[in-house]
């Protein structure tokens, strides 16, 4: 790999800074008292405390998984603070009253949220360290009956909905990190699209981790009733720290008959420095239940950040004719590790799923696709098509493909294809010989490679993703 290429990838993280806002931080450590503290701070009903405690007791009996293709030092769960919130100030009447320090942070990130919200027609529910600070466009959404608020608020205002759906797609004991999340989640988003309503705008939440060593345990729940549809965007950036931060979110999606949920993520958390020091551990459980007939759940993700990414946004296709989709780009550089993919569980007849996964590895990083396509005996005429492509940049990185295909119904058609390609010296020389420099060449090749995934993103996200990828890989090629 030439020097020019090295430089391109090795640019410092531009979102690396810490906002000085006083935080209300719980003492480090995890026990039933801490869970009771979280629950009481949030003024939760008794059933939710019970839900948390049951999850905690299950978690105590679970073993941290080791099958994933990632390596990291053992996490000390007693060295994490499980609750932190910006100290409550007087009620905010408008955006002008938001802490200017906070606004400056968003400015630096290039997310002037009020402008962005207005210009792009996006309602931004800003999550700043686990607690919602500002929510916009709520009234406009309320007109059509859409509920879009923080999950804490939803617990207070719509307890019956939360109680009906929370933990039904990802049960509290589903896996180690889901159990942990169920015990200690502090906030997240709640979204409810009532029967027959097409959400008039993309719903968007920007997450941001701020307090050092505060574990982040968001909980997101999205429900689309019969005939409803919604496109939800999640974007993440985080400031630079030298100690690892754990992020274990749970996202649950439920689509009833003829409903359609599209969930898009651009993830650019701090990945650690070029020596692999620091960075976020991103251990996420995302799952959608296509419960109704003709329902559709679509995941699109662009994963560029975090020291370790470990997530498998999945679809349970229970409804007849339901559709599951997974479009993913995962970029790793330096010492980053990503083990990501999806699970498509076909239960209903005539269910269909599509998987398109693009992994790009540079530096000394490792990127793995791990996927499961399961056709159960009841899934007559199920169809799946999977395509997993890897691109390697430099000779010290690794790309891995681990698809599991399990078919128990002979009317199914399942197809999986995988290939590798490269950005090598020869390709760059070819571009150079036609007068095109390395930076532009890399950007062209990467965008060509990721085209099928970027096409799935809402326009403004696609632009952001393209920039992000070029930025991440600048200097790694050539």
């Amino acid at each position: 790999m030439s020097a020019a290429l090295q430089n391109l990838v090795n640019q410092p993280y531009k979102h690396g800074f810490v906002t000085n806002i006083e935080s209300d931080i719980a003492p480090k450590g995890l026990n039933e008292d801490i869970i009771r503290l979280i629950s009481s701070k949030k003024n939760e009903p008794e059933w939710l405390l019970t839900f948390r405690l049951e999850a905690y007791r299950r978690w105590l009996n679970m073993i941290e998984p080791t099958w994933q293709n990632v390596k990291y030092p053992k996490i000390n769960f007693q060295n994490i603070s499980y609750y932190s919130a910006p100290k409550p100030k007087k009620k905010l009447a408008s955006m002008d009253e938001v802490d200017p320090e906070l606004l400056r942070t968003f400015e630096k990130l290039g997310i002037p949220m009020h402008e962005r919200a207005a210009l792009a027609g996006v309602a931004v529910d800003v999550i700043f360290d686990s607690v919602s600070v500002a929510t916009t466009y709520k009234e406009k959404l309320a007109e059509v009956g859409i509920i879009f608020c923080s999950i804490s608020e939803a617990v207070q205002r719509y307890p019956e909905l939360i109680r009906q759906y929370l933990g039904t797609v990802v049960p509290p004991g589903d896996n180690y990190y889901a159990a942990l999340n169920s015990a200690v989640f502090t906030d997240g988003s709640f979204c409810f699209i009532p029967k027959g309503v097409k959400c008039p705008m993309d719903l968007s939440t920007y997450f941001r981790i701020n307090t050092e060593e505060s574990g982040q345990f968001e909980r997101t729940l999205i429900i689309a009733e019969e005939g409803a549809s919604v496109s939800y965007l999640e974007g993440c950036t985080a400031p630079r720290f030298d100690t690892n931060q754990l992020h274990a979110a749970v996202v649950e999606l439920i689509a009833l008959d003829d409903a359609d949920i599209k969930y898009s993520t651009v993830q650019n958390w701090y990945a650690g420095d070029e020596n692999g020091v620091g960075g976020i551990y991103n251990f996420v459980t995302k799952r959608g239940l296509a419960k109704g007939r003709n329902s559709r759940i679509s995941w699109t993700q662009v994963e560029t950040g975090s020291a370790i990414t470990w997530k498998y946004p999945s679809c349970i296709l229970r409804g007849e004719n339901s559709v599951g989709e997974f479009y993913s780009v995962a970029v790793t550089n330096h010492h980053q590790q990503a083990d990501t993919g999806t699970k498509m569980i076909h239960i209903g007849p005539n269910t269909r799923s599509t998987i398109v996964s693009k992994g790009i590895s540079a530096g000394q990083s490792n990127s793995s696709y791990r996927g499961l396509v399961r056709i159960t005996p009841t899934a007559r005429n199920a169809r799946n098509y999977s395509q997993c492509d890897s691109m390697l940049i430099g000779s010290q990185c690794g790309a891995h493909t681990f698809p599991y295909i399990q078919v128990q119904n002979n009317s199914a058609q399942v197809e999986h294809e995988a290939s590798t390609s490269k950005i090598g010296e020869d390709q760059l020389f070819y571009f150079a010989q036609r007068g095109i420099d390395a930076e532009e060449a890399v950007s062209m090749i990467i965008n060509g490679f990721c085209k099928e995934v970027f096409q799935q993103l809402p326009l403004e996200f696609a632009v952001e993703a393209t920039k992000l990828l070029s930025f991440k890989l600048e200097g790694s090629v050539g």
Partner: protein
Amino acid sequence: MSTVIWDDYLEKLIESWRKEGEPSRTVSYLNRLRANALSRIESLRLPTIRDEEWRFTDISSLRNTLFPRASTASLPGLDSQKSTFLDEPTCRLVFVDGQYMPGLSGLTDDGSIIVCSLSELTGICASKTEQYLGQLADFQDDVFVALNTALMHDGICIVIPANVSITVPVHILYITSGKEVAAYPRCLLVAESEAEVTIVEEYVAWQEGVSLTNAVTEIYVGESARVNHIRVQREASQAFHIANNSTFVAKTAHYDSVNLALGARISRFDQKITLAGEGAECQIDGLALIADRQLADTHTFIDHASPHGRSRQLHKCIVDESAHGVFSGEIMVRPHSQQTDARQLNHNLLLSEKARMDTKPQLEIFADDVKCAHGATVGQLDKESLFYLQSRGFAEEVARNLLTYAFGGEIINRVIVASLRQRLEEYILVRTRIS
């Protein structure tokens, strides 16, 4: 020292061997090897479906029977002997219940091939095989290879000297007699530089019965040598068949294999190929044709350990009735194995509602200048082809059988020994109900 997980089944098994008494050994390295393997078994256990490599293949029923080793081999009539021999002149090596039968074996060649059984391993054969025997098939993490190595009570070493081309196929015939016994056959093939050979490894049953075969075959393909390896597993319908093939392919050497899994109640075949030298090539193809309640599990691992290697793989499964097919195919490209060209395809046909297929093709790539691709499909017969045949007047059932036959035929056609190919074609015709 790793933690000791003492497995009660293995404990009983080893105890029973001790009662049978140790076979005598003539070569010290063999004794050493056996002792090492035996001590390794103490820290291993039988795999269960909780082990990733065995998650689809439940062998717990193996624990129900403590298969003893056969002590005497009984011979059936001449006719059934003949029916398993190939029509062509061959170098034939016959085992019955794991015991080498010199009387049934015979060499048809000019004497350039070196063959000796393990019990008479001395002289040139011993010196030419020492660096390979037990070195290619790793027993550290594989309890079945360890068991086979610890026992190694009979087996055969074949050496094709440098620049020698053996024109007749070497037919190694492993026969189970139908008794409730275990066979642990071992075979080592060394093709020295620029040697050429075709080897047919065949497992057949003279009678129905519950038996266990745990076979290990090691193959070393020397520099620029060519080995064509045909493996046919037609064990009895209630048999357990567990086998490991470990092959090293040296610089610019070529290894071809066709593997057919047709018999046994539960069969597991581990094929490991290391493209160890620059420019080494392999083509490995396989077909599992199973029905009833059969389970056929094929695990392949192609290790591109050197630059400019090339591998091609086509594996097919035809799964009927309540049978269960498993395929796990891993392609590893090590760092610095630049210019690797690897391609793997896995196609599976499910013929009945109860049939089940689990497949897991995997790529692990640590070099950037490579061409690697894999593909897998699970499905039914192509509807368009079916319609085409029906529109030409074939009854639907006939059309189905014909297409199924053609699906498997692609692999059978790769068998280059004519009489064997013909026999296999007939077998598939019967199985696909065409004749």
